[in-house]
């Protein structure tokens, strides 16, 4: 990734310093508008080969999903957000999910988690042989601004897990 982490760290530290009071006062959207987004000009690309009916697909959401009772919720108060992720097994069902994310209305997902995490629909596509395999494990992040921890820690860990599980295709669903 052609990102200058040191430059980002400096810009991010300044953003936190200047935005903290506003963030804590609840003016999140105003603060986020000033976020020093990291995007390299070049768009990375892996050419597609094969057929989904022969491949393994995993879901990644940033909806703040966790398994109630067995996993801790995300930190929803910090201006840094929470760079960790939760592993959601293929067997998870509506009643298993908690949502820890302070910046979207949870009411629709609480009625039907498939609106942000369409695991049941994917399992049906697997049953109909339109997807080769729905991965055994899927992943949820939450609200996060600390991109340094994402780049140096969480995302490399996630990618290792996806490789180990022989995932080919990723569907990413923000909120």
């Amino acid at each position, binding site marked *: *990734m052609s990102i200058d982490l040191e430059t980002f760290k400096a810009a991010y530290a300044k953003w936190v310093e200047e935005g903290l009071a506003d963030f804590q006062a609840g003016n999140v959207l105003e603060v986020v508008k000033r976020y020093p*987004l*990291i*995007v*390299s000009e070049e*768009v*990375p*690309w*892996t*050419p*597609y080969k094969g*057929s*989904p009916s022969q491949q393994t697909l995993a879901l*990644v959401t*940033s*909806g703040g999903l966790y398994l109630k009772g067995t996993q801790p919720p995300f930190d929803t108060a910090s201006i840094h957000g929470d760079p960790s992720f939760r592993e959601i097994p293929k067997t998870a069902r509506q009643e298993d999910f908690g949502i820890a994310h302070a910046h*979207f*209305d*949870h*009411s*629709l*997902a609480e*009625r*039907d988690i*498939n*609106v*942000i995490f*369409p695991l049941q*629909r*994917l399992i*049906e*596509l697997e049953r109909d042989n*339109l*997807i080769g395999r729905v991965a055994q494990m899927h992943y949820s*992040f939450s609200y996060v601004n600390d*991109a340094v921890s*994402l*780049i140096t820690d969480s*995302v490399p860990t*996630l*990618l290792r897990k*996806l*490789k180990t599980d022989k*995932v*080919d*295709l*990723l*569907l*990413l*669903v*923000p*909120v």
Partner: protein
Amino acid sequence: MGLIQRMAEEAGFVTISMGNDAERMAKIKPPRALRVKFGRGSMFGEPGNVERQRRILMDALEALRTMEVPGTIRELPYPWRRPD
């Protein structure tokens, strides 16, 4: 989410993301994306609309197979009816 997608694509996964905000998507520059007309917290439409959810997943599989230009964002036509 954009950062995660780009790192995954760079690591050799074929990725597609959902989005509903054209301006934000233009800034994030995802490798492949579908843009929907649905509100926040509901990228696959209305709760309980099984057919719609399935349709969008089929659209995503089709897009994975057929998009050839890095940074392609395809708009889906489905209207948003926020449930009561």
